[in-house]
């Protein structure tokens, strides 16, 4: 065990730092900034060289993430492409797809989105209804997706569809790459409770997809989707990244305001800060342990979900504290923490609700028995009757 950088890691960190010092990003030019970073070798660090990556280590990627976070830089615009879509194309795509898409994805020449959830298929993703039907040498897709981040900007998406309703629901699915500019694709932004629109509804109205845009075999979409979801794990609360505000930012905010509070409120604020901070540190260092396992070549397992579960909670508690130290003015004042607060309820839902994550950890990590399934052995068509 050694938290310090190895000499190689230290050299890499120095290289990243020096680059970031010399290249301040322009906030409006998110695509250009990702391209600049890519050209310098700092995007897709762990991706294979033949996929446009650098073939580096997870620790190198983590160092890039740490250094960009340390400088307060925003996440890359194509984060979902890099974290979820790309890895899926790497594993399940054809040579031609890998050629066409991967490098452009890493450079943000194309933006990507992930089209999985539907209005009646959230936690129960395999219940999705978007239909893909054979049409000559291609497919025709109709249906609706929802909660699709970046769909309004995306060039491509990975799209999970139902190709056979007469087999049990997990077995009749097929994955495609879809051109988001194709005729019949309509994107409608969804407004969140905090007033922002980060998500979209996406409607497919008889959209044609050539068969060579299929990812994996017909009927094998569930297995392909598992690759995507496994890749998602590490990008949400895994690897020591924070959910919501960084605990250090909250500590700074509290430090700036605590002096103005009466003594008894200072005592309470410190207790809350201590509790939230310990939880956040616990999540962070547990993420580092996962990163170390990953560095040894292990796959990201279901235990990575623990970081999202507890990170969401500590983010909620710390943000509540940040609001509370503002006192009654908080309800009309400080926009930053108000907005953060109104974002957090979504965190315990998106990317796996707290309840679903607890099921996953309980069953796959602790080995506790699953609940009896009401829909077992039933075809999809029967299940929706």
């Amino acid at each position, binding site marked *: 065990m050694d938290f310090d950088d190895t000499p190689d890691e230290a050299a890499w960190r120095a290289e990243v730092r020096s680059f970031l010092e010399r290249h301040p990003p322009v906030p409006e030019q998110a695509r250009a900034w990702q391209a600049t970073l890519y050209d310098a070798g700092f995007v897709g660090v762990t991706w294979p060289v033949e996929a446009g990556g650098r073939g580096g280590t997870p620790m190198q990627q983590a160092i890039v993430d740490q250094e960009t976070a340390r400088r307060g830089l925003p996440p890359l615009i194509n984060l979902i492409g890099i974290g979820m879509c790309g890895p899926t194309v790497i594993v399940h795509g054809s040579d031609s797809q890998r050629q066409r898409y991967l490098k452009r994805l890493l450079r943000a020449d194309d933006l990507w989105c992930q089209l999985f*959830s539907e*209005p*009646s298929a*959230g*936690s*129960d993703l395999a*219940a999705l209804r978007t239909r893909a039907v054979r049409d000559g040498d291609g497919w025709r897709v109709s249906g609706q997706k*929802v*909660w699709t981040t970046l769909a309004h900007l995306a060039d491509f998406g990975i799209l999970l569809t139902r190709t056979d309703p007469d087999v049990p629901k997990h077995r009749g699915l097929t994955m495609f790459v879809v051109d988001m500019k194709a005729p019949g694709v309509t994107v409608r932004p*969804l*407004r*969140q*409770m905090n*007033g922002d629109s980060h*998500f979209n509804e996406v409607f497919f109205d008889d959209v044609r997809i050539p068969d060579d845009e299929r990812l994996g075999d017909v009927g094998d979409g569930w297995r392909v989707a598992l690759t995507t979801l496994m890749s998602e794990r590490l990008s949400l609360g895994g690897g020591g990244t924070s959910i919501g505000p960084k605990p250090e930012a909250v500590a700074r905010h509290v430090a700036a305001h605590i002096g103005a509070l009466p003594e*008894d*409120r200072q005592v*309470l604020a410190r207790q809350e800060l201590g509790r939230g901070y310990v939880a956040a540190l616990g999540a962070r260092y547990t993420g580092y342990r996962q990163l170390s396992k990953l560095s040894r070549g292990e796959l990201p397992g279901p235990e990575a979900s623990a970081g999202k579960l507890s990170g969401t909670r500590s983010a909620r508690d710390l943000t509540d504290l940040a*609001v*509370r130290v503002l*006192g*009654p*003015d*908080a*309800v*009309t*004042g400080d*926009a930053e923490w*108000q907005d953060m*607060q*109104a974002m957090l*309820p*979504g965190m*315990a*839902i*998106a990317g796996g*609700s*707290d*309840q679903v994550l*607890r099921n996953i950890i309980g069953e796959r990590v602790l080995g506790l028995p699953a*609940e009896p*399934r*009401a*829909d077992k052995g*039933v075809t999809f068509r029967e*299940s929706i009757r």
Partner: protein
Amino acid sequence: MNFDLDQEHLDLADGARDFLSGSASPAAARAALDEGAGVRPGRAELIKSGYATITIPESAGGGGGTVLQLAVVAEQAGRVLAGPSLVNFARAAVLLENLPDRLAGLADGSLAVAVIDDGPVLDAIGADTFLTLRDGTLVCGPGEVTARRPIDATRGLGDVTLGETTDLVRDARPLWGRAERVGRTILAAEGLGAAARLLEMGVEYAKERHTFGRPIGSYQAVKHMLVDVYVAVEQLRSLVWWAAWAADRAPGELPLAAAAAKAAAATTLELAAETVIQVHGGIGYTWEHDAHLYWRRAKTDRFLLGDDVAAFDEVARLAMGEAAR
């Protein structure tokens, strides 16, 4: 002992529900947030309906009713996020009780009163007359209102710069304290209504929405969350009724009862809002869904009339004081 609403109260609640659900709604709260639309039903309608003036004596043109009656109405107001709050009416009716002219102005709507505490002022927007306590004296005056960026647009929050004031009542601390406690009771009653409505929304959705082949409300994770809200709401209801009864009939119990109700309302409404968003999943997190409008109310109300932390502290001090006796 009979700890239950009488038929008269139930009838009053029915009437208030009809009026308020016809004139206010979460949709109106959303419009207030979105477009700066005025709060509904608005001050004039509330006075015209007679509900806002229940606790003003008949001699001054009010209803001559009890705090309990007002609490019953306030619960219905909370259910639909009505505005302005009944809190200022309740407090002002106490503060002005020996000032017949001003009381009559409160009752006929010619005075639009808001009470100033620390922090942003509840329903400052639309008020023209402000009451506050200054060095033990109750004073009154016009004020300049600045609205900032409220989380909840139905609370009419604003910062008030008082103009020239008139002294109304000297040695007014006991009066002020009683009025504040009556105000806390009514605020808690509004919170009760909001929390109870959230619970209904959560239970309804949990029965309808299916996942993995069965209603989500059949899963213990969802079911037990909603039960915890139910238990909190019912206990809040008991505390609100107790506090309202104490305001009318047992002034010695009012300080403890009002602090307990205020504190329970803050924590219960917050629990209800966050739980019900979680039960709804993504849809509960959208602008178009009503849940966040109640969530905004929760995040706001907890700071009004002293926050929950102060109320819990007060409960503890009172409990220790009584124990020492």
